[in-house]
């Protein structure tokens, strides 16, 4: 990491840390069934993930071009915040991967040690796919049934846009005949509703 990037990381923590934490928290809730007051795999929290990613960039200074465990480097050609978010995503994924049983298999006997270990497929099993479909159904239904959605035609229209695969702000602006700022505000409201629905399901 170049010195100026390191300094940027140190001097802009006030801006970067909340953005990283928000992303870690969203991913943890959405992808890893996390909710406030609980821990992720290996007892970690979203805050731990942010701290570890932050420190890994600082530790990576001066080791550019090398792949060393616990060290990360910035690519000057890519967006800074996107790289930080990508690292959060990767750290969360690695956490669940590390905690999976395949990494904890220890040979108990010499015979065990000699036996080749077969790792299972990383593809979702039919049961996992069914779980994921059930989860999606539960979230979508909870969002549609939310009192704030029921009470707002604008939010219902926004949901209809998402159902029609119209997912980008610009497209929604055009489809719903609203200003960009209005769509952005509606998306923030919808975001809070989705989050509430998922957290409730994670709790159940």
């Amino acid at each position, binding site marked *: 990491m170049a010195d100026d990037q*390191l300094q940027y*990381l*140190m001097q802009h*923590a*006030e*801006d*970067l*840390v*909340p*953005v990283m*934490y*928000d*992303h870690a928290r*969203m*991913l943890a809730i*959405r992808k890893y069934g996390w909710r406030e007051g609980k821990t992720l795999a290996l007892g970690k929290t979203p*805050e731990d993930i*942010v*701290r570890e990613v*932050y*420190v890994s960039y*600082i*530790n990576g*200074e*001066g080791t550019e071009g090398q792949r060393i465990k616990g060290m990360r480097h910035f690519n000057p050609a890519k967006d800074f915040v996107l790289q930080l978010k990508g690292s959060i995503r990767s750290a969360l994924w690695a956490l669940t991967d590390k905690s999976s049983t395949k990494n904890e298999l220890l040979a108990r006997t010499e015979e065990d040690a000699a036996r080749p270990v077969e790792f299972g497929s990383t593809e979702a099993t039919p049961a996992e796919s069914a779980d*994921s*479909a*059930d*989860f*999606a*159904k539960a*979230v*979508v239904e909870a*969002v549609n049934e939310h009192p704030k959605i029921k009470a707002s035609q604008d939010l219902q229209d926004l949901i209809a846009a*998402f*159902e029609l*695969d119209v*997912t*980008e*702000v610009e497209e929604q602006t055009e489809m719903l005949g609203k200003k960009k700022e209005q769509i*952005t505000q509606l*998306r*923030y409201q*919808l*975001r809070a509703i*989705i*989050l509430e629905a998922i957290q409730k399901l994670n709790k159940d």
Partner: protein
Amino acid sequence: MSKNHVKMLKNLDKVLLDDAGETPAEVRQRLEAEGVDVKGLVARVKAAAGEAYRQRLAADAREAQVEASKSKGKVFGNLVGLGREKLLGLIHAAGSGSYGPVATARCRNQKPEELSEEDLRTLLEDIESTIQK
């Protein structure tokens, strides 16, 4: 129907995970409204980052020290026990090009006559480490 729900949730993920419309200040404000102690969070991450940075600097300093001790004596020999005149002689020789252009450049703008014997040794060790690099 279930496939539609999965696809719909993927679409809604864009609102949760990809929305880049908020400024950092807005994100901070929203987190605070959701009950997150943002000030404490930033302070804890900054403290960990600061500690990592200090450890990094200390490791770099140790490395530099090891490098310096490796190069000690390789150019000017053992400086311990050399008198002021000999030390000055070495610096003048370095300044006039006897030890190469790097040493000459390092001696530029120096006033060795004004330095103590100990400082002369330090300067020579410094020049030595520069030449070694």
